[in-house]
């Protein structure tokens, strides 16, 4: 395990630094999803982030939601699929669908 790149280790370090921290986790995938179930993205109150839930496609939206979660402490379940005019604002170019759970640490 590479400690310097591990999101859960980073989350603990940020928490120790007194930062507010949220954790986003891929909990379900359908079709060709870029990151496997269990992948993490850690976000702090300033919008700094580390890790990946989609290889770059939807991170922006997840980070935005994570800031909200840090604010109100309520966990959220997000879902992303292929971006088209009828469905999601941001989407996965690979054609898959993912569900991401976002929670505050603490």
């Amino acid at each position, binding site marked *: *395990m590479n400690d310097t790149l591990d999101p859960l280790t980073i989350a*603990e370090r940020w928490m120790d630094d007194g930062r507010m921290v949220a954790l986003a*986790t891929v*909990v379900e995938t359908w079709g060709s999803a870029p990151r*496997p179930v*269990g992948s993490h993205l850690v976000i702090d109150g300033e919008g700094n982030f580390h890790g990946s839930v989609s290889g770059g496609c939807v991170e922006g939206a997840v980070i935005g939601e994570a800031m909200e979660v840090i604010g109100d402490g309520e966990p959220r379940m997000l879902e992303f699929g292929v971006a088209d005019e009828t469905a999601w604002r941001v989407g996965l170019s690979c054609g898959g669908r993912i569900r991401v*759970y976002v929670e505050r640490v603490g």
Partner: protein
Amino acid sequence: MDPYLLRKLNRERAARRAVIHLTDLGDGRDRVICEGDPVAGPLGAAVEGAFRSGKSGVAEVEDRKFFLNVHLPPARIVAIGAVHISQALAQMAKVAGFDITVVDPRTAFATEERFAGIDLVADWPEDVLKARPLDAYTALVAVTHDPKVDDFPLSQALSSGCFYVGALGSRKTHAKRVERLTALGHGEGEIARISAPIGLDIGAASPAEIAVSILADIIAHLRRRPLRGAAP
């Protein structure tokens, strides 16, 4: 997520112990379950299944949805013998994503020049494995040809359930090795787990080619290993 649980999760992962972070997707409550911890009821079966498969996922139990994030220790390789094969194996193992440690008490072999950037320990396996014990997520590769160096780690690898145990040597050398391991108290079935001659039979000739055959053999054992707890 509770900060205490995050610390516990990281501590267990750092100690190479299998853990599951379990989240109730209904109310957001979570807990950390170590392998072997009793979990009652139908959820217990889901937890056990996740530890065995190593696959994270959502489980529906009695109309409640849980997310089980499984953290199994990453597979690593311990190579006994700082020989030419290990030089190639160490480079290839890193590319394939394995942590590798090379152990050899013979300081003429275990030199920084030959193993630049590799975790190399110039000490007896007896001492090294005391501080860094083998486990089920480790592959043990014994390539010194020297029973004084190879036998102890081979015996330890069988006892600690390493997912791969391989030893270099001809069939004749191996027959003698089997006798010695039997004398150490290992049964026939246990000893049969040793890949000997080491590596896949791909006609490898050079040290680098032998390293390829060993790494491929390790990957085959890792990806096709019987689920722990399942019938052999």
